């Protein structure tokens, strides 16, 4: 799998927020075997130095986000600051349309992606399953799309399965990452079985009773879903169909 020019093996991208302790975060990253962790930028304060040291130890790729941004100016400035601090052109583009629903603003997202792609960023846009928005994001230079499964932090799984299936089929050769809304490993399996390329998670692991064990559960689920998709699922039938051959059945009457 390739994200821009980077070959990526792990299909799990992991958020770093909301863990019970820095140690649990570190252990969860390790257990998940993720190669990419998402991070943010916030005002420099007392906790800054500790977190800097912590993430340096992870030896993972950083995917900085623009979380909390509502306007184009905020997004572009945040992305430029992130590029300097994290020394990466990758940016997880989130332009939030409403503070309660955390739904992406598709119009501002396309506008921001256009500016950022021109500025040399490699944009990972948080979007919906809308095909036209997806087309426009690709047209302005994105090479990846990140449709939501459900609203951020809701844990509802895939809210629009048919719409997501259509999106997968329509953008056949574009890496599609389910970003947001995944609450259980079974939901991650379902997305991977549908042919999505990867899952971006945070709350489902961070807020589990045992985040480290949940990280392992998601790692295995995502791998199972990926294998299942590659292996090819059987067709569903309306009626039962015997699997044991009838030929050679002994006459015992």
């Amino acid at each position, binding site marked *: 799998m390739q994200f821009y020019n980077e070959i990526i093996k792990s299909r799990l991208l992991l958020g770093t927020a909301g863990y019970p302790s820095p140690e649990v*975060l570190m252990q969860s990253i390790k257990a998940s075997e993720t190669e990419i962790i998402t991070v943010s930028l916030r005002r*420099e304060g007392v906790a800054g130095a500790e977190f800097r040291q912590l993430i340096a130890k992870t030896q993972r790729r950083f995917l900085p986000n623009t979380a909390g941004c509502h306007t184009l*100016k905020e997004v572009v400035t945040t992305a430029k600051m992130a590029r300097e601090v994290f020394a990466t052109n990758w940016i997880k583009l989130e332009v939030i349309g409403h503070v309660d629903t955390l739904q992406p603003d598709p119009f501002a997202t396309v506008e921001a992606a256009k500016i950022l792609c021109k500025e040399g960023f490699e944009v990972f846009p948080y979007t919906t399953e809308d095909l036209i928005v997806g087309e426009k994001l690709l047209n302005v230079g994105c090479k990846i799309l990140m449709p939501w499964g459900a609203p951020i932090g809701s844990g509802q799984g895939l809210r629009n399965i048919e719409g997501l299936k259509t999106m997968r089929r329509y953008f056949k050769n574009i890496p599609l990452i389910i970003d947001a809304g995944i609450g259980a490993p079974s939901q991650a399996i379902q997305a991977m079985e549908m042919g999505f390329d990867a899952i971006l998670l945070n709350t489902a692991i961070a807020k589990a009773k045992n985040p480290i064990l949940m990280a392992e559960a998601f790692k295995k689920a995502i791998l199972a879903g990926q294998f299942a998709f590659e292996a090819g699922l059987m067709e569903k039938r309306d009626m039962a169909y015997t699997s044991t051959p009838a030929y050679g059945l002994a006459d015992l009457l």
Partner: protein
Amino acid sequence: MKLYLNGDLVVTQEKNLAGLLQEKSIDATCVASAINGNFVPRSRYQDTVLKENMKIEIVSPMQGG
């Protein structure tokens, strides 16, 4: 001179952004800055002159989803 640093009103005698960071014991290699909402690259800290009421934001890596 009075200006705003990460939302707080501060008074400084420093003339440029590099001096302000030094005064506040902030390691310039670990942070990024914006003035009045516009990004200021590290290479420009020395020649970025401070002005009255400027809104300076200094950010660093934090947890994120």
